[in-house]
């Protein structure tokens, strides 16, 4: 394995002033089976008013990263190293009290499953008002007024009566709207949405995605949007980071990554998805094999056991031995030369996409 340079994966230094900056993040869990290296050498930045889409399959470390930003990991079994700087404030190693002051206030999260994320015991209005009361010291009445205002903003009909309803009286799409209202109640500067539409139907998903986009325009918050669906990402994100095996393998703007992807894993993801306009007589091209175990990750490039291009790497570089680094800014962590990446995508991958 090559020695890891400290700057690996760090975006351009000009980004130092960006709103959220994550550098060299490592997250490790101790379990009975050994140490799970859930996130390795991860660096990224998010600007205000922009959306960063994180794509990856289950176990790629995307949710773990975001729970680390929010400080929601159990400190007893988790080891977090690296830097997480939110608006000039260092979050790794910050006290629980500091984190409490930030969560729900400056940064908020929308969870995947609105039914389990809402408490069945309290009314929707009370749950939306709670962070507002905690962070602004508002009275019960003010919190209720605010909850009604938020429910109206996210498009729930009759917010004045629905504010006193319990979560079970809401449908799936309405619950997700209530969750969004709860996340936005303190005007957070950073919103983390972890698969917010995966549990919803397509028609409702389309409503929620449009709603998030409109709300972002209004509030100007930075959004980290986690999903496994490249279609959803294409719809909402400004920038994309593709994760695999706990590492970022490709990064760029949405246009760059979807129009001219460079990493074989991104190619694999794109060509394994059937499309509405695709050629049905052509077989889907799955990525062979299964995602790596994070207990015992493959040496070198984490994707090499499943990569169909690993023999094409020139100049005696071994994908199994040397781990490719993710260059700064736009790029992919892959040993193929830029020329190869371009020609393979155009000649072999693009025709499969139909």
């Amino acid at each position, binding site marked *: 394995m090559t020695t890891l340079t400290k700057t690996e994966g760090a975006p351009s230094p000009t980004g130092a002033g960006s709103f959220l900056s994550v550098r060299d993040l490592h997250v490790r869990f101790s379990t009975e089976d050994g140490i799970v290296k859930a996130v390795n050498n991860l660096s990224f930045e998010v600007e205000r008013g922009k959306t960063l889409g994180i794509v990856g*399959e289950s176990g790629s470390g995307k949710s773990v990263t975001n729970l680390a930003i929010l400080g929601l990991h159990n400190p007893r079994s988790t080891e977090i190293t690296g830097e997480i700087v939110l608006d000039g404030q260092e979050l790794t190693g910050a006290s629980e009290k500091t984190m409490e002051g930030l969560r729900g206030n400056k940064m908020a999260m929308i969870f995947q499953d609105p039914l389990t994320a809402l408490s069945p015991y309290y009314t929707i209005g009370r749950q939306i008002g709670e962070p507002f009361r905690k962070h602004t010291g508002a009275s019960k009445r003010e919190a209720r007024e605010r909850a009604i205002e938020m429910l109206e903003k996210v498009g729930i009909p009759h917010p004045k009566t629905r504010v006193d309803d319990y979560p079970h009286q809401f449908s799936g799409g309405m619950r997700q709207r209530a969750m969004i209202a709860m996340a936005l109640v303190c005007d957070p500067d950073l919103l983390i949405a972890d698969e917010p539409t995966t549990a919803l139907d397509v028609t409702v998903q*389309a409503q929620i995605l449009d709603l998030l986009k409109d709300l972002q325009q209004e509030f100007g918050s930075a959004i980290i949007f986690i999903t496994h669906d490249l*279609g959803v990402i294409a719809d909402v994100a400004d920038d994309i980071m593709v994760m695999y095996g706990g590492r970022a393998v490709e990064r760029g703007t949405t246009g760059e990554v979807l129009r001219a992807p460079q990493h074989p894993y991104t190619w694999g993801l794109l060509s394994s998805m059937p499309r*509405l306009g695709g050629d049905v007589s052509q077989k889907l091209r799955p990525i062979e094999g299964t995602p790596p175990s994070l207990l015992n990750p493959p040496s070198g490039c984490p994707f090499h056991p499943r990569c169909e291009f690993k023999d094409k790497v020139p100049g005696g570089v071994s994908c199994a031995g040397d781990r490719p680094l993710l260059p700064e800014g736009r790029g992919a962590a892959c040993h193929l030369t830029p020329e190869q990446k371009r020609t393979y995508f155009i000649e072999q991958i693009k025709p499969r996409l139909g």
Partner: protein
Amino acid sequence: MSDELTLTRPAAPAAGTGEPLLEVKGLTKHFPIKGGFPIKRTVGAVQAVDGVDMSVLAGESFGLVGESGCGKSTTGRLLTRLLEPTGGTINYRGQDITHAKRKQLAPIRSEIQMIFQDPYSSLNPRQTVGKIISGPMEINGINPPGGREKRVQELLEIVGLNPEHYNRFPHEFSGGQRQRIGVARALALEPKLIVADEPVSALDVSIQAQVVNLLQQVQRDMGIAFVFIAHDLAVVRHFSQRVAVMYLGKIVEVGDRESIYNRPRHPYTHALLSAVPEAVLRDEDETEGRERIRLAGDVPSPISPPSGCRFRTRCWKAQDKCATEAPPLVQIEGNTPGHLTACHFPEEGTTGGGREVVLDPGLVAMEHRDTGSAGAAGSGKES
């Protein structure tokens, strides 16, 4: 509902041999709601499936799409007779199996198999893979030449697993591999029809394609007919020659894949197709390509579905007629044979044009504020 105009005259599909394997007419399933004290009475019914007509030809793949709660899974369970229908008839190769008893069903059950959604809960964790796959043969008393173990190993090979894994337990396999075990179990009795209920939706994107390809290969090699139930329109399009769109217990549109996806007529089909996010970025000059339809709210409750056309509460074309008269599933003018639509005021048969219909009150209000464009809340706008 006019029966003579329904699915009994399907267009010859590409892979089908033309012989109808399964014919369903007016299939209905109402789940009773019990309430009251001290004696529980039936106070209502969840009308999960309400008058579904369809037919599946031998060797073809029939897709069933719709949102959660539309009754597609219940339909699948009725077809396999895991549930007793409330009404209607199910004909399997000319035999009426609607209310057949357990004993009468036994020979038919071996010909209709099912693949379940969740590969974690559909395999018994205390049985080995060999036991799971040979289970159907044991129950039906089938002794294949060479013994059951050999047959199981053959099946494991067909689905792309190592035959040496015969004695392993399900927890030793990944999600995609477990789903392959489920496929092997469904193939064990050489069925004529497989009902696959969301077989890939619990799997990761890169694994989904592996299982879809496996199912497709099995279908081609063995000529098995499939009823493929899924909510992912792109996967259904890839897998099925004919597709039916369900909404609140009824089929609202059915036809050949080509026709449903390129020339949909029912407003709901338009809305569904326009809501699918696509990973293809269009060039600047093409941005007008797709429709953008945003419905208001969620699917209504099947306990008291809307009168007349069930989609009318979320439809932008609904008129008085829609509330009083349920539209029959018929072939409307301009459709290819076999493409049936249940709508009084069908849409144009195109998905392009960049039309916008926004019914969602939250979105309308916000877009109104942003752009100052016309469009009162809830009334939607069309441009």
